[in-house]
């Protein structure tokens, strides 16, 4: 980006639109009530729903920071406001530490499969002290990096607000002038970005091992952490695309959400959803082939045994009978299996076929809808990774007033934090004039 273009990027604090603020506060209130009501009637369900939602938003937020870091690392010139939106998602990331500390209070219900009787030989790793120390360290390290990155990313845009006093003058302490600040902060961001990218991948891999994979304590997969973390990265891109599309007529954004920007972010969703499915399949294939009970249990609990024992293939007729839609659908009877297929539909089938062409990627309504479907799909996916380990028989354990209420509360809180960061705090700067 040329220096003249960056110079135009100045922070402009705005008020949060009142209806949105009201909706967020109402959702948070519903969430808190649902959680407290759940704690008194069915604490296991309340804690598990809390666990799922904090993981979903936590990895999404950190994924947003990772997306912004990716833009910095490769020196991307196309994103424009997309980078600021991705950073806005990251405002939630430091809070993940707080939510982890809360969720740890419910460890009796969340880590029940191993908390008191870990599988023999895994006691050293699967114990509450080790989990607590390690995961707090990971979240604290990520929070520190995230705050530093956001600070250096935003600081050059604050020049005009120095005189306002208060927090603005604290953030701009030791101002060296527009040009020098821009160069220095850009250099700091370039140093931080690769560190954050690596910490995100490694850190969340271990969070996924500790807090999701361990719920089926006899199962393990080295790929699981990468798969989970990649889902977070992809959902952050979908969230960025959705927010970008929603902002296309917002003040200060006119002419910024161009067709070529939507095309580019659409391509990211398209390509990375294929990679997400690929990560799943590469693990599924080897487990299907070896067919060892200790490995297949995780898939059987989610997809049902029909994906593990292939009955087809004696001759063509039988192959057709097994895989034609009616017979295929009839075989999907085991708990959670239809839900898992629905996740595939939302996170891969729909993005793949809908965003295959050039025009759908450039159409705001289509790109936004696909992003929304994906975000919902990933929320379901987090549920399907957690619940079957804890409540194996009941397909609808994830659904209920308490669970939905808690999910709503998290949604409201996340949107509120995003708005606070991008509106009151001056991060969503007047965007650059750059195509």
């Amino acid at each position, binding site marked *: 980006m040329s220096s003249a273009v960056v110079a135009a990027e100045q922070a402009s604090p705005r008020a949060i639109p009142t209806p949105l603020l009201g909706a967020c506060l109402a959702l948070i209130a519903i969430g808190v009530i649902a959680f407290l009501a759940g704690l008194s009637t069915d604490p296991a369900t309340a804690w598990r729903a809390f666990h799922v939602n904090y993981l979903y938003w936590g990895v999404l937020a950190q994924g947003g920071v990772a997306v912004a870091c990716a833009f910095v690392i490769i020196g991307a010139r196309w994103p424009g406001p997309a980078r600021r939106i991705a950073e806005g998602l990251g405002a939630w990331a430091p809070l993940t530490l707080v939510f982890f500390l809360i969720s740890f209070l419910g460890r009796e219900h969340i880590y029940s499969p191993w908390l008191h009787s870990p599988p023999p030989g895994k006691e050293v790793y699967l114990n509450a002290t080790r989990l607590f120390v390690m995961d707090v360290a990971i979240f604290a390290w990520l929070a520190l990096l995230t705050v530093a990155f956001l600070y250096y990313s935003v600081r050059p845009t604050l020049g005009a607000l120095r005189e306002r006093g208060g927090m603005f003058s604290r953030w701009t302490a030791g101002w060296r002038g527009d040009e020098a600040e821009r160069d220095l902060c850009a250099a700091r961001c370039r140093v931080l970005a690769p560190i954050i990218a690596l910490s995100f991948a490694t850190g969340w891999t271990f969070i996924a091992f500790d807090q999701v994979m361990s719920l089926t304590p006899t199962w393990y997969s080295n790929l699981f952490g990468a798969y989970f973390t990649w889902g977070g990265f992809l959902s952050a891109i979908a969230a960025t695309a959705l927010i970008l599309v929603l902002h296309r007529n917002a003040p200060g954004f006119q002419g910024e959400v161009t067709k070529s920007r939507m095309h580019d972010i659409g391509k990211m969703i398209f390509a990375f959803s294929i990679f997400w499915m690929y990560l799943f399949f590469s693990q599924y*294939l080897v487990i299907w082939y070896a067919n060892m009970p200790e490995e297949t249990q995780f898939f059987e609990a989610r997809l049902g045994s029909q994906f593990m024992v292939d009955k087809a293939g004696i001759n063509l007729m039988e*192959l057709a009978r097994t895989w034609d839609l009616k017979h295929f659908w009839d075989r999907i009877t085991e708990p959670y299996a239809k839900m898992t297929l629905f996740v595939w539909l939302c996170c891969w089938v729909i993005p793949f076929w809908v965003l295959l062409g050039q025009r759908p990627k450039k159409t705001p309504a289509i790109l936004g809808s696909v992003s929304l479907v994906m975000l919902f799909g990933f929320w379901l996916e987090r549920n399907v990774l957690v619940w079957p380990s804890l409540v194996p028989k009941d397909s609808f354990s994830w659904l209920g007033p308490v669970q939905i209420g808690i999910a709503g509360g998290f949604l409201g809180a996340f949107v509120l934090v995003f708005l606070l960061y991008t509106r009151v705090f001056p991060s969503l700067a007047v965007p650059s004039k750059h195509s």
Partner: protein
Amino acid sequence: MPTLVGVFDRPGDVAETVTRLKGRGFTKLEVYSPAPFEEIDDAVDPKPSKVRIFTLVGGLLGVVAGYAMTIWMSLDWPIVIGGKPFASIPPYTVIAFEVTILFGGIFTLLGLLAVGGLPSIKLGAGYSARFSAEEFGLVVEVPERDVAEVDGLLRAHSAKEVSLVAS
């Protein structure tokens, strides 16, 4: 029909001239450019390239061929391996995936040659070696009575020279 050749120095001028000429109804035109320029592409043909149809057909053909080949082979010469059925979908998905990419790639290359009319052995009448060095050439066929008008239009859009190559 007479053919006029305009020589330009900047791609922006070429794109603008092409748009103006097409607006006036002179659609039989050819542009020679020393390097690819997006604005010229958009001016000459704003529609997305047809090559992508070849890629789609190749990819779909590939996925069908990948599954068909593996299933047919394992049913034709049935050997039980690892207790799995003869025709199993999961492992053959890998082959279907690879053949999708292979056929998609080959079809894209063929489509590129077909749509681009390559290889092009015979050069057009208006071509000059300068257009492979650093200048841009705009070749346009115009009816006899419009020669003067187009000549003026080319010059008005910063063509540094205009010549009549055939009539």
